[in-house]
């Protein structure tokens, strides 16, 4: 198989990078930068969820919990400790990862398919309750409705420089420096031994095992990497919004992630990126639609309807469709 297409022509990379660096300058408004920042946060979340739910084919409801845990970790540490932000960010990724590894070995070894999905659902509910009702009683600086007034992030490499991220544009570029390498990392991951093993597990777990693939370890690995980056996304959110709430672990978010992932195209790279971008920008665009004729209820109904139609008409999502077209062309050639 030609591995070139995993990383792609550098020229195209260049175009995208340059574009994403220039775009916020073209659009000065802080609010639009906010939308683009959130879009990137969702790209990270959806792509990391894709690893387990898309590539490996195990639907996981636990992603919002990892996101929230990351956000709380970063929020609390920023408020109460003197650890440099980059360290905090790393830690807010490592904590969910540790949890996910424990969960993974506990349940992947016992249950499969839907039962596993339910265990993650249970974990998400329990985590949400702990964040909203238990943590405030035991951790200083955590209110029942979340962590308020989180200080802005300060990036410092002691001898060289110290810089506090204040405006949206700062956060935009900071996040861009995380997102672009992350996308590259994901595309590379897919072209490794592990990446192919995950696809194999999704396609036919029995066969994969019979052919000598250690499915348990691979599944846990995918789950853990996903959790790590979900945590990073949360860890970034805390100083950006300066507020985190238990809502982050609520059902609303896994519905949103699933919409982005499955409409975009599970198991592909471009799919989740498109899905995340479209579905994080669309609701904001709807804010500008004439309010009266476009009630929020109608928005929810349309949201559900469009997702339903996409699943039925193009079950593999947009990314899957693109992949299909390319494959057909290559097969003919």
């Amino acid at each position, binding site marked *: *198989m030609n*591995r070139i297409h995993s990383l792609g022509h550098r020229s195209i990379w260049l175009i995208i990078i340059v574009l994403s660096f220039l775009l916020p300058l073209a659009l000065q408004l802080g609010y639009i930068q906010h939308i683009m920042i959130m879009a990137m946060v969702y790209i990270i979340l959806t792509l990391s969820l894709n690893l387990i739910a898309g590539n490996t084919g195990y639907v996981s409801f636990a992603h919002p919990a990892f996101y929230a845990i990351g956000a709380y970790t970063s929020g609390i540490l920023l408020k109460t400790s003197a650890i440099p932000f980059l360290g905090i960010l790393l830690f807010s990724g490592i904590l969910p990862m540790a949890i996910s590894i424990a969960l993974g070995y506990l349940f992947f070894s016992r249950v499969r398919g839907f039962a596993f999905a339910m265990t993650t659902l249970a974990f998400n509910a329990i985590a949400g309750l702990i964040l909203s009702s238990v943590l405030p009683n035991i951790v200083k600086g955590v209110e029942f409705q979340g962590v308020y007034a989180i200080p802005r992030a300060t990036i410092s490499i002691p001898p060289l420089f110290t810089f506090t991220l204040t405006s949206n544009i700062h956060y935009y570029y900071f996040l861009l420096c995380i997102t672009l390498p992350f996308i590259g990392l994901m595309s*590379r*991951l897919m072209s*490794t*031994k*592990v990446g*192919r*093993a995950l*696809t*194999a597990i999704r*396609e*036919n777990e*029995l*066969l*994969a*095992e*019979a*052919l*000598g*693939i*250690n*499915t348990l370890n691979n599944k846990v*690995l995918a789950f853990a990497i996903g959790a790590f980056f979900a945590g990073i996304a949360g860890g970034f959110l805390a100083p950006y919004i300066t507020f985190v709430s238990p809502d982050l672990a609520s059902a609303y978010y896994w519905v949103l992630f699933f919409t982005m992932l499955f409409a975009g195209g599970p198991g592909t790279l471009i799919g989740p990126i498109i899905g995340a971008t479209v579905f994080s920008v669309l609701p904001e665009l709807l804010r500008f639609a004439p309010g009266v004729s476009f009630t929020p209820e109608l928005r929810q109904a349309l949201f559900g309807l469009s997702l339903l139609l996409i699943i039925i008409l193009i079950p593999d999502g947009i990314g899957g469709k693109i992949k299909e077209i390319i*494959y057909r062309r*290559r*097969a003919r050639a």
Partner: protein
Amino acid sequence: MVKSKRLFTGDGLVLEVVNLTKKFGGITALDNVSMNVQEKELVALIGPNGSGKSTLFNCISGLLSPSSGQILFCGKNITHMPVHERTLGGLSRTFQLVELFDNMTSMENLIVTAEHHKHYGFLGSFLRTRKVKAIEKTCEEEAHRLLDFLGLSPLANRYAKDLSYGQRKLLQIGVGLVSHPRLLLLDEPTAAVNPTMIKQIKEYLLKLHKAGLTILFVEHEMSVVMDLAERVIVLSRGTKIADGTPGEIQKNESVLEAYLGV
């Protein structure tokens, strides 16, 4: 050719099954069956429907856990070893109803198997060190060689789901071979394919046998069994009723009984 990793060494007996019994609830599917396969041997396992062939097969390959008895592979007890470890140890199998990664290309089907029989971890693969590059290259070469051998090269970039049934059967044999097994278990390799394809598959199996591969296969098609097998093992109602050369088996009373139900 890079040597794939081996868990066990030892010669002579490749597979040895000792008093294997398997019960499903009340039913006894296998009633202490004992059998063996010598190195470089081409053995057929036959028997009427429900005689326990596939149960025995699944116990050997690890899909089922036997109720009692032992399975020795190259002198090592693998009775309760996880499936993937048996495979890594050089025991590979195919399935009667073809099992492949449908949404991966033929090439990828082979590569994903090949690379999991090589020594290198996630990080190495991720950082793509020179060593790893070399290994992955050899994996591709082996995959190409196999596709050539099976005449599937033109279909290298096709999804497995888009191949014909016969081609899928072939590809599955390829997937079984790419891990350099010490013993290849084939579950009805010629079932439900057209005569020309049967002929083709027979040729391939003979070639492999000549190349020194040890093969144990379940088969319904008697002509195939008689042409290929050096030795035939017959099961009936979960017990072994005969074990010998095709010639002997043809003359064996109890076998006829079992088949004709006299």
